[in-house]
């Protein structure tokens, strides 16, 4: 029972953070915006019969190319869920931190961490469940009846894959922030890594082992025909499992830190 209570409390705390809603807006509206731009580009290229100008070849690709914005949203959600615990309240001096209240209300750090992870995962899952189908629908509406590459069930698999990728990204961000306590460093590093100038892609140019890095491993969950520089991408299932292993490992490490450190 008290586990459920802790989870409800964590969901309430997360929902009360303005930054969490900014993250949701970036993930949802940002993805939709990029999808609209992409889909319009595809439609114009199709109308002009200019197949070379097709940045993204179909409605489905137009939608899934917007995934990085959702990843940024997931990073922000994971980071602020934890960093808000360590932000001093009110005044600059002598301000208490919320973590004190959290750990006196629920003295088990493990329970707090699991509840936080579940709350973050639930919110990201909800965002994905709304955003990805909405992007697909908008793209189809704009592009019209251009034949899609790949079977229809593949779009479903990629939708699920996107949701899994976002959830795992948020959990990794949460775990890293437990260790750093400040949100600044994880926010910068993970947002950069969700971008087109990702550190993982750069490392991939040096060693094929980079495809086992958490974010690179999971890319095949939503991307198709994706080739990491200097290597072969992992299969979707294998990539997802590698990324999940990173997330579980990071959360375990975070839990150990939380139990051993003075609040």
């Amino acid at each position, binding site marked *: 029972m008290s586990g459920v209570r802790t989870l409800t409390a964590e969901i309430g705390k997360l929902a009360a953070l303005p930054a969490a809603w900014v993250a949701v807006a970036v993930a949802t509206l940002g993805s939709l915006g990029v999808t609209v*731009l992409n889909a319009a580009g595809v439609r114009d290229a199709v109308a002009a019969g200019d197949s070379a100008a097709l940045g993204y070849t179909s409605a489905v690709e137009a939608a899934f190319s917007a995934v990085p*914005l959702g990843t940024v949203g997931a990073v922000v959600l994971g980071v602020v869920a934890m960093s808000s615990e360590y932000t001093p309240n009110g005044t600059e001096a002598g301000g208490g931190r919320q973590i004190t209240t959290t750990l006196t209300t629920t003295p088990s750090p493990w329970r707090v961490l699991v509840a936080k992870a579940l709350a973050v995962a639930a919110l990201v899952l909800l965002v994905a469940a709304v955003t990805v189908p909405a992007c697909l629908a908008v793209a189809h509406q704009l592009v019209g009846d251009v034949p899609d590459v790949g079977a229809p069930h593949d779009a479903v698999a990629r939708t699920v894959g996107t949701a899994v990728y976002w959830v795992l990204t948020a959990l990794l961000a949460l775990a890293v922030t437990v260790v750093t306590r400040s949100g600044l460093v994880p*926010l910068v590093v993970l947002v950069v890594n969700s971008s087109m100038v990702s550190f993982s892609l750069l490392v991939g140019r040096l060693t094929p082992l980079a495809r086992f890095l958490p974010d690179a491993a999971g890319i095949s969950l939503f991307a198709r025909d994706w080739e990491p520089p200097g290597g072969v991408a992992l299969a979707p299932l294998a990539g997802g499992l590698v990324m999940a292993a990173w997330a579980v490992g990071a959360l375990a490490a975070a839990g150990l830190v939380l139990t051993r450190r003075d609040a």
Partner: protein
Amino acid sequence: MSAPPARVVTAELVKLRGLPAVVGVVLGTPVVAATLAAAHAAAAAAGASAGGLALATVPYLQVATVLVGVLAAGTEHAGRQIATTLTVTPARWRHLAAQSLAVAATSALTACAGLAAALTAAAAWGPGDGVPGARSGVRPLLGALVALVLVGLLAHAVTVLTRSLVGALVATLTLLLVVSPLVAAVTEHARWLPDRAGSLLYLPGRDPVLGPVGGGLVLVAWVAAAVLAAGCASARRDV
């Protein structure tokens, strides 16, 4: 906008110097830039110039100047420091001008250190001619410096406007690093985005419509619009 007295600009520089996060950015940037340039150099094809490899780190260096801009304004609102700031310097435009100048100076210092470190690392480990800047010339590096300072000022103005450190940081980085490349992949109009236009300062000839000067002016227009919006907002609203 009246010119701010030198003492207010100095005060803003002392303020930035007192923030460990800003000191960390200024000192950490050359280290990160050198590492990234070395990584690019290791992966680069033979014949890549040191200057070209150093310029490949500019997208990352943007993160450093964005951080300087965001931290300068964001820390005013994390707590109540803004009340102290505006009781000491009640003229909102004067304070904004002073803080912008301090951000520009600190961004320039950070970008210089980063570019110099990247150039050195690229020359040391790169497959190129080994003479920094010999092939590409100094002009693109100066262009990169100007673009980086302007990006720092843009991030600063966005933070003054939104008064949120995390919000402005996420918004600016997402625009520069995620949205801009995505948009550039589908439409040529992406050239009007601040960082795409600014990149013409160090990658001239990349765009058929805008040259280096045109690209620089587009970025300056973005910064001017953001600073104007930030100034009007801070002059009107309650602290």
